[in-house]
């Protein structure tokens, strides 16, 4: 078990939207230089959990701590300024902008041009291209290309490189490999490794058990908003994880257990099994 202070820690976090309880009593630790794989069926609450971490939602109750100190985010910008960075499934959100321009949206490098302050396109392009190159993606060499013209894997890679460049400490990846082919996915996984090597804490959401097994150090399974399992690499076999993820027999059993537990405990889910 990792003994260092976790970068990010959740303590008994609940989240409900009006009468709908989506997250129940989640306690989780995320360490630097580790990849946490967040697994679970559709609707389990994975997106809600990471949106809570990213400052989109506020927990209804419970605590969030960074480096052992309690934090509260009013908006995604707050979380971002603390170093929590989310990369969405399709990478860049500005497909019609150039690589250099989208890399620096909101923090554009400028230079003097006579009495004017202008956007420094050259620096922007060079920095962006260099940042992805450092992650081993050499096919991106022209910062003037449109984001939309890149492949899915390249976009993900660029988005991750961007987060790292701007000092992210916790990198949240929401199904980064779901829409990718095998080769593209491999690229992204390599970049996840690279980010981990640089000491980032990575939260990786995926449905593909192979991808989870490849990069994960630590696994958390959500079922109906509750943490149904929380284990480390090597503690479960691939089959067991597949069962958990794919809703096989083990999953059905677990859900049955939870249901009976919940009906017996006034709708409260069971504590996570370690």
């Amino acid at each position, binding site marked *: 078990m990792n003994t260092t202070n976790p970068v990010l820690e959740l303590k008994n976090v609940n989240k409900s939207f009006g009468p709908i309880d989506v997250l129940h009593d989640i306690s989780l630790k995320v360490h630097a230089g580790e990849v946490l794989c967040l697994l679970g069926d559709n609707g389990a609450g994975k997106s809600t959990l990471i949106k809570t971490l990213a400052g989109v939602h506020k927990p209804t109750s419970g605590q969030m701590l960074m480096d052992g100190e309690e934090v509260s985010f009013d908006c995604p910008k707050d979380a971002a300024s603390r170093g929590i960075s989310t990369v969405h499934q399709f990478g860049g959100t*500005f497909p*019609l902008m150039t690589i250099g321009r989208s890399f620096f*949206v909101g923090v554009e490098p400028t230079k003097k041009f006579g009495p004017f302050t202008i956007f420094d396109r050259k620096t922007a392009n060079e920095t962006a291209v260099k940042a992805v190159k450092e992650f081993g993606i050499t096919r991106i060499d022209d910062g003037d290309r449109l984001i939309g*013209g890149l492949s899915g894997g390249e976009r993900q890679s660029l988005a991750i490189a961007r987060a790292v460049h701007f000092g992210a400490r916790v990198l949240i990846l929401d199904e980064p490999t779901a829409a990718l082919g095998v080769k593209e996915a491999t690229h992204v996984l390599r970049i996840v490794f690279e980010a981990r090597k640089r000491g980032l804490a990575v939260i990786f959401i995926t449905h593909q058990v192979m991808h989870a097994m490849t990069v994960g150090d630590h696994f958390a399974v959500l079922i109906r908003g509750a943490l149904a399992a929380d284990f480390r690499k090597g503690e479960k076999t691939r089959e067991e994880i597949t069962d958990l993820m794919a809703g096989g027999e083990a999953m059905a059993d677990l859900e049955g257990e939870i249901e009976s537990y919940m009906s017996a405990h006034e709708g409260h889910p069971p504590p996570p099994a370690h």
Partner: protein
Amino acid sequence: MKTQFLSKFVTRPEAGSVMSFVAVILFFVIFGGVQLSNFIGAASWVNLAANLGVVALPVGLLMISGELDISIGAMIPAGSMSVAILSGYYELPIIVGILGALALGVAVGLVNGLLTVRTSVPSLIVTLGTLVAMQGVILSASVLLTGNASVALSAPEWSKAIFGNLVGGSYQIIILWWIGLTAVYFFIVHYTRYGNWIFAMGGDRDSARNAGIPTDRLTIWLFVLSSTSASFVGMCGAILFNSAQVSGGMNYIFNAVVSVVVGGVLLTGGFGSIIGIFFGTLTFAVVTQGIYFTDIDRNWSSLIIGVMLLVAVVMNNSFRKMALTGSKPKKEKQKLNTTRAAA
């Protein structure tokens, strides 16, 4: 090297409008029997382009940022009536009339902008509301204050020299304003960080806001800009023609949107260019005014505009698709380029 330049040009937002501009002129010369020298020197289409262009530029910027402003249709007569009522009917100094017209533009722009960012009502509906409301305000104010729907104005020479003069007998001074404003917009949009903000906002407003861009403030600014520009064009017209009417201006809505779309701005926002809008406006003016120089019946110009608009929308859309679906196989990309070039 040459093909690389060509393929780079074709993927630029202004490519379509530059090509359609050239195509329309060629069409008129070849099939319309136009004498190019007569045509180039004619003031009518340049005047139309300039008046339209001053409004089309900020309307295009709004569209790039993902919004629409149709209240410009009322702001053009509002601008001309303001200056005419203040400085014509009430005989206040012309500067009061000019500032009054511009201030009204700022005020209506603020209303449009604030309503758009504070409510979730689409800006098309918000500005439809202010369009109709301002039409009512202008008509009632004019009738109440002057008892007339048309007001005379005799502006002093210096103000005519700046806002409403004919240079060389038939060229309106607003042409210089248009060219100057195009240069200013070009610089701001493509060379400063604010341009980047507008494109980011049109691409994805939430992400732009999360990246620290003051999206609400920027949106309000853009509405103020378009409303004030429309008021400015109306004001220049009143100073030039020595009178202002309550009616008119509605066709600017349609004409500006056509110019902007032909200029390669995506209806859904996030993509476009100042040069594109400039050439889109020129193309529109050439088609509607240039037709008088041809043997072609002028009623056909509407057909040409309609076809041009549809081709532009389809082209813009296929370009967007190409950009969104990522790296394309070579063949398909080539096909796309040739259809763009053919259009």
